[in-house]
């Protein structure tokens, strides 16, 4: 009965065909010997066990399995207590349930719990018998405590061809590395051909750094460095790319970016987000499609925030300093935004009971600008709302006073002056909810009908004597229809005596209530003709109502989704804009989408940068071609300019243990220039990728794109 009781911790249980020994000293066993201790199980042909030293010598053929691994070989000399020892001709495999990692070598050393070293070793992460690639190294250290593996003077052989040598390389054992970047990365395209070898340095459990020396055939030597830290209360990163001597530009180029966010406790938090590049063309020369597209204004901001919440209200305040580095382009000059050095904002909300609640939005900002009027602005907007909330609907009248005081510096001929603007704002939001069971295309739904009325009244006031620090006109959408102000920022407040009417209907799955389809229509009816423009002058409105807005979006079946919007311009009685997006994603790895977009006038419509129409079609997809083969493609064509804005095509091959990707991308980088980029990547399962990583680009270009090595073959 001792046999089948659970072995106590530290107890050694040994069984064999033949056995001899001396009490307290040694045991010699022969004939399929099995030794068990805690999570360790050792099987061997013969075994000598020295009890005092907990040391076992086993031979001709042994297999030692424990929580993190299974090692077999010819000779073993092992201490069962401290889990140290050596093995000859070892075959190593990570334990069941862990990421596959298999290797063999001349010798293996056991360096304590979950720590192993394979000498003159060969290893990969493929299933048994699959040697399509392997890492050959003089030593491979595996630490299943911190889940990091390290190889010393390692050579990577792919299909028998050595494709990489590195004196030192480390890799994740739990597939946990950040972007899976492994030495070396290789890029080619309009930015030149670039080879860089990142070194990932795991400084401490939550501090790591990546140093990436590289060479670009057009630009010369490059050095990238990124330092990241992650602590319970604060986290952040600092990254830079340095090109000390750019051959083509004949000067040094660099980019810096630093992010930090910290929770100081008791409601306080602080942080900064700073990005800076050496010159206007930096992204054109070094950036990817995303960098170029969204890299015009680089923010540099720091903030200190406080937030507190109690049962019946909240209070938030933030002190922020922010400015932008605006990268000018020769063809389309960009308006440099004001810097807010500093800006103090506060907002408070307090429920007063019986449905009443008070709200305050306040802001004090110092605006500076190289060429425009500078000054500071105080905004205080207290308001009281009474809300009646019932299951059949709600009624929410709100009354507030928007007070703004400018103290403007001297500017050209204008002397420094104080200007104030006080506008009462009254609005009432109301809505009803109707339901009924219904069927659509044969399945049952609960259909809702939700009329909503929103009345807004703000006295009309000329504001062309006020500067425009941060106001711009919002594009019309269903959120904007129910917004108090057509302009964002606080410099322009449109006069209003209007009623917004909207009706939306939703089809809810009758078992779970999840929304499958939503159709909405909405419009604003103006009772006064006064209309404020962005430069502050009031003009006469020519129509009694705003643009008419329709939207329809839904996911009637798990694989089909659509999204569409139509906006009719009442003034010009023309279509203002419409777009239709259709997505078909039956299974991961199979997705196709088509999007069409028309906009009557966008500010960069025509080639010369003047406002003009935008007509675009965007077809994208990822589809399996054959077993293991996938094609990815995207074609974004501007019908207006009769030229493609982005073309992307590529193939992906997933052989279970490695994935190869070849992706070519050609995109518009300015109104006159296009760029291309080629991504070649070999991704080794759970180890990392070599070459350039196209995954971010693919994720953005192809809606519904999924990584094929995550899909079960």
């Amino acid at each position, binding site marked *: 009965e001792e046999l089948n009781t659970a072995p106590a*911790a*530290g*107890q*050694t249980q040994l069984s064999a065909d033949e056995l001899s020994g*001396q*009490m307290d000293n040694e045991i010699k066993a022969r004939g399929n010997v099995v030794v068990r201790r805690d999570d360790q199980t050792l099987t061997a042909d013969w075994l000598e066990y020295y*009890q005092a030293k907990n040391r076992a010598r086993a031979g001709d053929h042994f297999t030692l399995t424990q929580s993190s691994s299974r090692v077999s070989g010819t000779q073993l000399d092992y201490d069962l207590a401290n889990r140290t020892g050596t093995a000859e001709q070892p075959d190593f495999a990570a334990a069941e349930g862990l990421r596959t990692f298999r290797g063999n070598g001349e010798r293996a050393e056991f360096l304590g719990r979950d720590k192993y070293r394979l000498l003159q070793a060969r290893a990969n992460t493929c299933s048994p018998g699959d040697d399509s690639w392997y890492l050959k190294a003089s030593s491979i250290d595996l630490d299943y405590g911190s889940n990091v593996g390290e190889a010393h003077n390692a050579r990577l052989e792919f299909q028998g061809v050595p494709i990489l040598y590195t004196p030192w390389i480390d890799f994740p054992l739990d597939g946990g590395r950040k972007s899976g970047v492994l030495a070396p990365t290789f890029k080619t395209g309009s930015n030149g051909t670039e080879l860089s070898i990142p070194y990932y340095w795991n400084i401490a459990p939550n501090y790591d750094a990546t140093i990436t020396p590289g060479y670009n055939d057009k630009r010369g030597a490059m050095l990238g460095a990124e330092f990241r830290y992650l602590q319970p209360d604060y986290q952040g990163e600092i990254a830079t790319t340095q090109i000390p001597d750019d051959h083509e530009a004949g000067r040094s180029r660099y980019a810096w970016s630093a992010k930090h966010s910290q929770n100081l406790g008791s409601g306080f938090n602080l942080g900064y987000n700073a990005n800076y590049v050496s010159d206007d063309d930096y992204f054109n020369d070094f950036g990817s499609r995303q960098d170029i597209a969204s890299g015009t204004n680089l923010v540099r901001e720091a903030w200190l925030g406080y937030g507190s919440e109690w049962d019946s209200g909240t209070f938030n305040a933030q002190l922020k300093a922010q400015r932008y580095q605006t990268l000018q382009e020769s063809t389309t000059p960009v308006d440099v935004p004001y810097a807010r050095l500093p800006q103090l904002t506060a907002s408070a909300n307090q429920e007063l009971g019986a449905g009443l609640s008070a709200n305050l939005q306040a802001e004090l900002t110092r605006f500076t600008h190289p060429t425009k009027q500078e000054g500071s602005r105080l905004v205080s907007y207290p308001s009281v709302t009474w809300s009646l909330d019932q299951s059949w609907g709600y009624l929410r009248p709100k009354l507030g006073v928007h007070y703004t005081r400018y103290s403007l510096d001297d500017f050209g001929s204008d002397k420094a002056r104080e200007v104030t603007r006080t506008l009462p704002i009254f609005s009432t939001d109301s809505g009803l909810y109707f339901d009924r069971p219904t069927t659509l295309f044969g399945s049952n739904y609960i259909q809702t009908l939700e009329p909503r009325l929103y009345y807004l009244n703000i006295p009309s006031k000329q504001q062309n004597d006020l500067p425009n620090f941060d106001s711009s006109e919002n594009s019309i959408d269903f959120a904007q229809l129910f917004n108090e102000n057509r302009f964002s920022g606080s410099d322009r407040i449109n006069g209003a005596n209007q009623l917004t009417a909207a009706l939306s209907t939703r089809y809810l799955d009758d078992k779970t209530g999840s929304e499958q389809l939503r159709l909405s229509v909405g419009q604003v009816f103006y009772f006064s003709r006064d209309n404020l423009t962005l430069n502050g002058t009031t003009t006469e409105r020519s129509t009694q109502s705003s643009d008419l807005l329709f939207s329809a979006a839904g996911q009637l079946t798990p694989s089909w989704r659509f999204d569409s919007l139509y906006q009719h311009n009442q003034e010009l009685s023309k279509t203002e804009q419409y777009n239709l997006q259709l997505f078909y994603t039956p299974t991961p790895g199979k997705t196709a989408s088509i999007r069409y977009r028309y906009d009557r006038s966008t500010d960069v419509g025509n080639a010369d940068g003047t406002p003009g129409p935008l007509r675009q079609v965007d077809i994208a997809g990822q589809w399996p071609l054959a077993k293991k083969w996938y094609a990815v493609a995207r074609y974004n064509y501007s019908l207006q300019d009769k030229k493609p804005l982005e073309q992307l095509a590529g193939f992906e091959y997933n052989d279970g243990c490695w994935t190869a990707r070849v992706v070519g991308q050609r995109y518009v980088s300015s109104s006159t220039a296009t760029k291309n980029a080629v991504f070649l990547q070999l991704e080794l399962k759970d180890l990392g990728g070599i070459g350039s990583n196209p995954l971010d680009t693919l994720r953005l270009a192809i809606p519904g794109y999924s990584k094929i090595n995550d899909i079960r073959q």
Partner: protein
Amino acid sequence: EKADQSKPIEINANSGTLDQLKGHTVWEGNVVVTQGTLRVNADRVVVTRDDKGNQTVQATGKVVTFRQKMDGKDEYIEGQASRLDYTGITNTAVLTGNARVKRGEDLVIGDVITYNTQSQTYQVKGGAATGPNKGRITVILQPQTTGQQP
């Protein structure tokens, strides 16, 4: 322990007979043999003494048990089997048939265990594959409480 050798052997049982011719005595009926710290229980014990005075004890029974204190430690060594043959001159005890030897918390299980009380060495045979232990020997060693951390 070693001092047991010099101690007198005391045997009591339900019945005992002396066979002068073969020079051995036979005891039957929950026989208890004690010599110093050594103590054997069995259903039937045959003690033979050769002319030089060397004794051999053969104990049989449903379960034969023996118990003896270790030298210099207050730990006991216990054993059981269906048959025990103890030869004084060679200090060897042979336990046959579902044999077990327990010392402190360590345990050895097998079909035949040959144990030398002098050198404290033992050999174990697994016996037939169809036997209770399926021809296998098992040793259970408790964690080293002294010195080494388990």
